[in-house]
């Protein structure tokens, strides 16, 4: 019995992936990750349809000792092998602490799909330096010494404070009367 095999093009599905990078990730490292994702998607015959950088966000629970992380979200169309390959790559990168892929559309027709070329560019990461204060709670509760203000800490030493004479201290009561 003759068996006819018809070569169908692989089924295209739409997926979305969110990955979390360490809060102190450098611009170069984030760029490398973005390039790698771009390469993998192209190599596996997929197509990026949307990329969004959500920026540094507070996590609901600590992940690999990080309380905050940089969120990046992207949507793409591809076959079944693409997700596996992409996740394998994401797992290898040290700056990525977590990721999740969700299938949004099990069957998609690419001919009817319009993609904005500007929307598929990974944004260059330009975030202010992460100043994570791990002891904020202890400080607020008074268990440890309150943080000195940087300006005051530089301006005065303990000797200066001891050497202050009465003349240096303005008489606030009189000044108040005079000004008002």
């Amino acid at each position, binding site marked *: 019995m003759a068996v006819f095999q018809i070569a169908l093009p692989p089924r295209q599905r739409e997926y979305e992936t969110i990955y979390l990078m360490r809060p102190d990730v450098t611009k170069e490292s984030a760029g490398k990750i973005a390039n790698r994702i771009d390469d993998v998607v192209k190599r596996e015959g997929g197509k990026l349809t949307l990329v969004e950088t959500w920026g540094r966000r507070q996590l*609901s*629970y600590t992940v690999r000792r990080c309380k905050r992380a940089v969120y990046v979200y992207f949507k793409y169309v591809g076959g079944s092998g693409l997700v596996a390959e992409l996740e394998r790559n994401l797992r290898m990168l040290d700056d990525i602490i*977590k990721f999740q892929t*969700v299938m949004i559309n099990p069957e998609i027709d690419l001919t009817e799909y319009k993609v904005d070329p500007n929307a598929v560019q990974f944004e260059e990461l330009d975030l202010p330096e992460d100043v994570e204060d791990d002891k904020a709670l202890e400080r607020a509760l008074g268990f440890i010494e309150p943080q000195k203000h940087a300006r005051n800490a530089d301006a005065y030493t303990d000797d200066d404070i001891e050497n202050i004479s009465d003349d240096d201290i303005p008489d606030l009561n009189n000044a108040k009367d005079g000004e008002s």
Partner: protein
Amino acid sequence: MDRDMDRDNAGAFRRARRRGCPFCGDEVVTIDYKDPQALRYFVTERGKIVPRRISGVCAKHQRELTNAIKRARNIALMPFTSNE
């Protein structure tokens, strides 16, 4: 006497108007795991999913909601549990 009053009050409490599913009537409101602010309404302060007998969500949407909350938890947008 007291017992009668209690029973009356309890009856009045039980007869509170039941609200319909918030997602069935309004097509605009969607369930999305990427929007934890909207999902927060359907979890307790501790982070547990509110049962549908309390929230009044229909079975179909409760299933979607549960899925969305679990996805949001997995990507650290929502807590698994919270002691605050």
